[in-house]
């Protein structure tokens, strides 16, 4: 079939772009997004519980805006508006602005993951701890957070897999991840169906392998408790 021979031809010529650059950048962006997201998301979740009202308000605003607008819009914003606020970004390639947007986006979702992970812990645990005379802080550190982590980690894993797919939007700015490579190859070969098929298969393999690995890891964590 012409279709298959085209695919073979494309892979022969461009396998590096797809497998090395494409997947490489996709994974890089995803790791940056989720690692940064986990860090800032934790700070945000903490800040939301503080008594300083203005802090709570700012964090809530960020979370609501980020969760309420499309990622593509946020990327446009990050690439065209951020450099006006942070001049050093002008000289840097777009992947920096894109990474910042991805981190902010992931932080918002992660902070909600953390918040609901904490809230999912039986409130009786906190009541029992406080009844013994333990401070709020000790109770959180010794009892609540360790149990919340068991709720949070699987959700974080899912966020990672979601981010893998979302990084495809960065292709608007040709940052080099998998979808960018698809556009590039398609632009030279005009073989859209073949290029999209290859890219689709690669994304699927990526997310499939990762979610299987995630399930394994979840199971091993449950066994521990």
């Amino acid at each position, binding site marked *: 079939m012409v279709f298959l021979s085209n695919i073979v031809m494309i892979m022969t010529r461009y396998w590096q772009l797809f497998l090395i650059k494409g997947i490489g950048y996709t994974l890089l962006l995803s790791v940056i997004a989720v690692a940064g997201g986990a860090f800032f998301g934790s700070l945000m979740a903490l800040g939301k519980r503080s008594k300083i009202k203005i802090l709570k308000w700012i964090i809530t605003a960020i979370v609501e805006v980020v969760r309420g607008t499309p990622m593509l819009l946020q990327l446009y914003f990050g690439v065209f508006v951020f450099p006006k606020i942070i001049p050093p970004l002008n000289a840097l390639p777009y992947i920096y602005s894109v990474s910042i947007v991805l981190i902010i986006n992931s932080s918002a979702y992660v902070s909600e993951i953390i918040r609901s992970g904490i809230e999912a812990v039986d409130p009786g645990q906190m009541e029992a701890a406080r009844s013994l005379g333990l401070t709020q802080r000790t109770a959180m550190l010794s009892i609540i957070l360790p149990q919340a982590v068991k709720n949070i980690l699987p959700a974080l894993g899912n966020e990672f897999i979601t981010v893998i797919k979302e990084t495809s939007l960065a292709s*608007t700015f040709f940052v080099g991840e998998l979808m960018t490579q698809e556009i590039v190859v398609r632009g030279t070969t005009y073989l859209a*169906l073949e290029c999209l098929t290859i890219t689709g298969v690669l994304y699927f393999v990526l997310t499939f392998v990762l979610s299987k690995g995630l399930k394994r890891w979840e199971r091993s964590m449950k066994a521990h408790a």
Partner: protein
Amino acid sequence: MKKAIAIVLALVLGLFCLTGCTKANDKKLSVAYDKYAAELTASGTNGTLTVALSPDFAPMEFYDASKSGDAAIVGFDVLLAKYLAKELGMNLQLKPMSFEACQVAVQTGSVDIAISGFSWTKSRAENYELSDWYVAGENETQQSIICLKENEGKFTKAEDFKGHSIGYQGASLQEQLVSETFGNMSDVDSKTYVYADLGVAVEALKAKQVDFLAVAHGNGESIIASSNDAIAFTGFDFEVAEIYKNNVCLLQKGNKDLLNKVNTALAKALSNDYYSGWYDASKVYAGVSTLDELGFDDDGNKISE
């Protein structure tokens, strides 16, 4: 289950790797282009010229997969960008992004100029500073309609298209031409389809979801070349007003200073006829034509007639 997954993955990756053990030998294709590119290397002292373009549009701007970094972005518009930078005494920084994003970039002032196969349209003229036109070979001067091979040569007059569907890229010159030429097509069956990008449009044509596509002739050539003889020119060309025939650059509204400098450089290029050589070299690079066909020798030098 674990084993099965591992085997499947190994096979899939193995298949990909087996077929990819040799890097494509495209050295020959770029030999003429590289000569021009070398001549146009900038040595800027007046700052940096940032240029937005969308490298998904052979032969105007596209990627050379065997290269990396900025050098991987090639095409006619890239040569033009290099030329402008050199004339202005500036360093060149290419900013690749989608076609729509290019326009946003210019509007917000994120880049100085967008050179990405833009045609003159009234709404663009209202919202941007448009440079003088430059000649992108016959890429824009000739606007054609392509079809599946079986329809080749059968549709040569505007009336022939009544009752059929025509597609084009959104916000393009072709869109304007189609509505002007076939605007009175209010027959029951005639439809127009808008596509975000040409690749998708081509797939629609192959799948018979649309009967015809309106494209710039140069793009049509690229499309036909990679279609394995499935697509052909209908033989119909649009009547293109002079003002539409060529490409322009987009600058931010109000940026008269840069606009004047660009126009000066463009005028020089036009009078020295740089454009045809650049376009031909780009066509060879994109694999649409050969060195031989377009009058280059094997070292990439233009054979003077």
